[in-house]
């Protein structure tokens, strides 16, 4: 099937098998490998992207279901905030908060965790610690014990992250 997605603001048109997962389409067809695959049961959240601005696990979405929709991946996140700062990299404020609060170690869960956190603050701009913890329940991290991830999300909320 031929599908056309707006990915990080760019029209991308491709021929895909009907069964192709959105995450494999992003990674293998479009070369956007920042979105990771950490499980096969939609449990870990490493593949979280924004679909029309809302977080989805891109391993539970078929590429054809995203036809005609807007997808934002970690590669395109900074541009959504018009960001151009950071140490040699353009950071969205959430990315900067993760950097400043040491909210990542190996970095594999990080793209999905950041996208989930952006989506969380869109729904709840000023969450409590407990609300951040509940809100990120669908994203697993094995390195940080979540302590600094939670700090990062709360710090980003304090600064008023753009949705």
């Amino acid at each position, binding site marked *: 099937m031929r599908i056309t997605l707006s990915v990080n603001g760019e029209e991308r048109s491709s021929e895909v098998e009907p069964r192709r997962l959105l995450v*494999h389409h992003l990674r293998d067809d479009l070369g956007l490998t920042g979105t990771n*695959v950490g499980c096969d*049961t939609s449990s870990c959240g490493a593949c979280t992207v924004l679909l029309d601005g809302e977080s989805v696990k891109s391993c539970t979405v078929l590429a054809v279901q995203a036809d005609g929709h807007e997808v934002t991946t970690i590669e395109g996140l900074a541009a959504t905030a018009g960001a151009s700062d*950071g140490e040699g*990299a353009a950071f969205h404020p959430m990315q900067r908060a993760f950097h400043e609060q*040491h909210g990542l170690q*190996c*970095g594999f869960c990080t793209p999905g965790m950041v996208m989930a956190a952006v989506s969380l603050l869109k729904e709840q701009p000023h969450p409590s610690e407990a609300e951040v913890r509940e809100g990120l329940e669908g994203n*697993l991290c094995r390195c940080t014990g979540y302590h600094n991830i939670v700090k990062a999300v709360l710090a980003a909320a304090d600064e008023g992250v753009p949705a």
Partner: protein
Amino acid sequence: MTATDAPGTSTGGAFGQRLLRKEDARLLTGEARFVDDLAIPGAVWLGMVRSPFGHATIGSIDTGAALAMPGVRAVLTGDDLAGAWTGPMPCAWPVTEDMKAPEHYPIARGKACYVGDIVAVVVADSRYAAADAVDAVVVDYDALPAVVDLEEAAGDRVVIHDGLGTNRSYTWTLSPDPDAVEAAFAGAAHTVSERYVQQRLIPEAMEPRGVAAVPGVYGGDLTLYSATQIPHILKVQIAATCGVPEHKVRVVAPSVGGGFGSKLNVYAEELIAVAVARRLGVPARWTESRSENAVATIQGRGQIQNMELAADAEGRITAVRASLVADMGAYLQLVTPGIPLLGAFLYHGVYDVPAYHFECTGVFTNCTPTDAYRGAGRPEATYAIERAIEALAREVGVDSAEIRRRNFIRADQFPYASIAGLTYDSGDYEPALDKALALIGYEQLRAEQQRRRDAGETRQLGIGLSSYVEMCGLAPSRVLASLSFGAGGWEAATVRVLPTGTVQVVSGATPHGQGHETAWSQIVADKLGIDPADIEVLHSDTAISPLGLDTYGSRSLPVGGVAVGMATDRIIEKCKVIAAHQLECSEDDLELVGNELRVRGTPGRNMTVQAVAFEAFTAHNLPDGVEPNLTAQVVYDPPNFVFPFGTHVAVVEVDTETGAVDLVDYAAVDDCGPQVNPMIVEGQLHGGIVQGAAQALWEEAVYDEDGNLRNASLMDYLVPSAAEVPSIRLDHTVTPSPTNDLGVKGIGEAGTIGAAPAVMNALIDALAPLGITDMAMPARPERVWSAIEDARRGSGPAGEGAS
């Protein structure tokens, strides 16, 4: 902690700073490349056909239907690839001379010994085609009785490896004076006899494994990309097992998404990728699925521990006797048999004990092989002694903190020659305990606990302590030799100051989340007085970093980082030789202040390190006999392990009506000597503590009697999310190690080592009024609820047998 606390470091200032990580930008923007992210033109995808039986003979393998599918290039069995291996898969740690080890090849032939054992490999044009074809390979299995229970396996009713004649691989004993142990128990005022089960755990690094073997078709060389902690060790083993000359092998670990020991191995899939790539002359790649990871990647723990203490009337421990049965799984992987023995010396923990006996029997089962998982032997040892000392406290009738104080090795006893044969480098245990109790508010919590008990509330409070010491920084090569380990324990570092004044550091350590690029930069920047941003740390590619022994056992900093510091010291020495020559002074007259080599007492006569580097590059005016360029390499073999320590306090709430346990607060005071980057130290502790708490409360690889893993997915295996755990309070003390120039100790495993016993002690403490003194891990609600019900009815054990 400030840099000036650190012995042997300059006052450059970068050491000890909370420098934000250099690694972050690429990981935060998606620019980082993990193995599955690599674009490899022309690569074929591999799919593994795995045994669905725990124990079965393999009959015919029908590949016809798979081969007929579109995009499938080949299906290869163990027979097809038998000629691809020059030897079996390596077990580098034959712990005893008579250890029994089955021959283990990447693809099973004749018999499969665990669910997940590879019986054939599919080669296809895409990952989807490979996955489809795996399901189409028809293997004729004949199921055999399986053995999963450790003690049953030791009884040999079912023998897994016919040629060995038994499931018992080895028995290893450490018993410096058996008579002294007997005498201590005979004369004891109090004794404690406990049995603990260390359940099997799935490491669950967030990145599953991946591998890509890329042959140089014309050059005869081979590059292996692998999600591994050990590219250097893997290079040697590829040469040994696949017959590729070692000088033709390059191994690259690109960005690696966590390891926790699970990527400290030489895996079948790596060797299969090499074999297929060489046979077909094309790149061959494989990415593990999560459910595949659960059975195909090593698991951790898996022990039954019998733990006995003898003590005098005041509760001072006079002897420790520990006896283990350890689960090897179906085969011996790289260091499987040695893992329990990394704890063998630590069953008396932080306590001054005069008599000691340890023995461990390694047993095969029809389960995934075990091997190193965060802490590797030391969490098990710490759990046993820290649970047992609580039992002793109950027996003697003293408080948890008091029993520890009575037994601590005193500060004036360091360096401490332990009864188990170690020399603990440095320590001061009581201040860490005091600080941890203050941090958590111990007295107030005890008062609140009493209030809830008196009020008969359904949410009872429990407070649990754990004081640990661990041996890490693997390791002095001669000590490893005495333990029959198949390699050394040194680490290599190269520092180069380039002509334009920036610096490259080459490290043989292989980070996969630990932040070495940042920390190593701080060590060098501190000594050379230059900006950490002007330093690049290179690693994880055997072509760039040819010498190394990689990252595990909390060794990177106390071995690899120390080597970086030593190489930097050599750079400074060479700078002084060149600067003295050009400034026409004695080397002794030079001092390094910031990045300037100054002639003492002569303002204005100086050269920067960067200027010396340029002079060393042009070589126009060097002293006779001095080699051009400012570069230094050090290979450091540590004289001893290092021994970080600390006290953790966990607070749990137990709902006595449902058995639900909430970890509500946690304080840890750890001592790893001077901290290069406190932010990174804290991150290691946060993650480690949650992993340890997860063993106590949630995680267990559950096998049925046929050897099926019942919770192979992340839906069924409970890796905690942010919602399950609290924020963690941390503090530290600083007791430098005298064994290395930086005074540093490892911290990668300490959190995990301290956490599980603290949480379990808290849970048992909460239930103490019911008379409950034991609980098995993980303390799932139904297990806790059953224990409460049994206790209320006054029947049945609450512990290890109650699952």
